[in-house]
């Protein structure tokens, strides 16, 4: 068994190097398929990050009537904070609101003078609510529509953002669906390309396989080198893909940072998810190669 395994390994490596051009072509096709899959991963990450960035900029502000006490506002804040859909609730006191107003209009002495003439703070406290998802805002607002809370509220600015939020929700859903469809199409194309590349490589060996069988080689002895080559192709194509991908990621990183206006780092994303992304890709490539090789060789070993 040991000698047989050793010989199968020897034949696999020997064939890989002796049919170098064929190996190179097969490897190139595998690398192209893997790079394509990773481009799709990048597209997916960028699309999701872009949507998250936009979603993050959306919030709703609730302005309380000026006679509402701080305790009442804090109670509302506490209640909203406890909702499952809510990510954060920031409280802005009457004084803070006035301060913010003055800062905002410091270049306009007329407005500042008018505020000072009133003597009494005309602004009420407010809460800035951020939901976990943009689709959660209507549910949060529904709660605030109940008389218990509605009577305390002077105004809400959700209506101003409603159209934007609905659009974002629409885009999020469309992008999500598109990514799934594109991923499936790409996966199918990659599978077909890899399957055909392996099939073609083995097709060129059909006479050899026939000769091996006539000499008395067992199916395992014939199939073994091809299956092992499938594993070698899988590992090598993954390594080459990494060597191509990381410089590419480094190149596009500043552009993506510029577009996404944040501290988004695509290289960091791939580093943090290295095992998940490349582990799955490696496993997928090896499995696909093994299955393709097995199906292709099986056709010719029936002698």
């Amino acid at each position, binding site marked *: 068994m040991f*000698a*047989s395994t050793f*010989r199968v390994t020897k034949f696999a490596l*020997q*064939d890989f190097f*002796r*049919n170098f051009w064929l190996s190179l072509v097969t490897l190139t096709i595998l690398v192209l398929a893997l790079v394509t899959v990773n481009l799709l991963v990048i597209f997916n990450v960028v699309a999701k990050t872009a949507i998250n960035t936009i979603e993050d900029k959306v919030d709703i502000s609730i302005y309380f009537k000026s006679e509402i006490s701080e305790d009442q506002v804090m109670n509302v804040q506490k209640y909203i904070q406890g909702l499952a859909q809510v990510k954060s609730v920031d409280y802005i006191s009457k004084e803070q609101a006035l301060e913010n107003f003055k800062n905002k209009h410091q270049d306009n002495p007329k407005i500042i003078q008018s505020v000072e003439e009133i003597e009494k703070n005309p602004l009420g406290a407010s809460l800035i609510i951020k939901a976990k998802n943009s689709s959660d805002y209507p549910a949060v607002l529904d709660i605030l529509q109940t008389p218990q809370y509605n009577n305390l509220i002077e105004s809400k600015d959700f209506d101003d953002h409603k159209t934007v939020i609905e659009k974002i929700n629409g885009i999020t859903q469309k992008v999500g669906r598109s990514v799934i469809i594109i991923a499936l199409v790409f996966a199918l194309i990659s599978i077909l390309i890899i399957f055909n590349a392996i099939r073609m490589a083995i097709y060129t060996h059909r*006479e*050899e396989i*026939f*000769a*091996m*069988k*006539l*000499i*008395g*080689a*067992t199916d395992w*002895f014939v199939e073994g080198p091809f299956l092992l080559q499938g594993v070698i192709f899988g590992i090598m194509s993954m390594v080459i893909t990494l060597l191509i991908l990381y410089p590419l990621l480094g190149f596009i990183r500043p552009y993506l940072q510029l577009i996404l206006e944040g501290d988004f780092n695509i290289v960091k994303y791939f580093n943090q998810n290295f095992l998940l992304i490349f582990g799955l890709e490696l496993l997928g490539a090896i499995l696909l190669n093994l299955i393709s090789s097995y199906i292709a060789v099986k056709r010719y070993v029936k*002698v």
Partner: protein
Amino acid sequence: MIQFKKISKIFYPKTVAVKDINLSIRPKEFVSIVGQSGAGKSTLIKLLTSQLKPNSGQIIVGGWDITDIKAKEIPLLRRQIGVVYQDFKLLPSKNIYENVAFALEVCGVPNKRINSVVPQVLKIVGLKEKAGHYPDQISGGEIQRAAIARALVHRPKILLADEPTGNLDSLNTKDIIDLLLKINEFGTTIMLVTHNKDVVNRIKKRVVLMDHGEIISDQEEGKYIL
């Protein structure tokens, strides 16, 4: 050594390859199976190597009934029979030494033994100097000698030669037939399938003539007469 008992092989729907063949070949015998294309000669080789299964009858090789041989036993059968083909069937990505060694490697023979046996066999077929060459670097006659070396290296008791001189010129044909006769002298049973009249008539051995899937004559020291 080889027995065909009322063997018939019919390809779907009704092409008769061989019909009611009764043929017995004794150990150490040299038998030429002759006939025109489509006579059923190569079918006999394919039946003996279990590339085909008969529709009826019985095939016995060295006392082993291979009529209904199981798939997992086929490699064992083929390791006991050496086969030489018209198109050589050498592995193009292996050199001559490796091609010959491969027949032993599939049998699980230890490397030490392979390293001692292969050079001896290459010497017998006159290819010791060409051991490191690849099939596309040597002549047709040399390729066929390499194929014979591969068929012989595990010392089979039976050597089947299916049109071994079909692709060779007259000089190389003579060389190959002389080599087969020499191998036969060492005690190997040889079944030569050919339609080369000159070869058959020169060697003066048993001749079995086939036509349309049937044996129409079987003569000791016969000649190829149509």
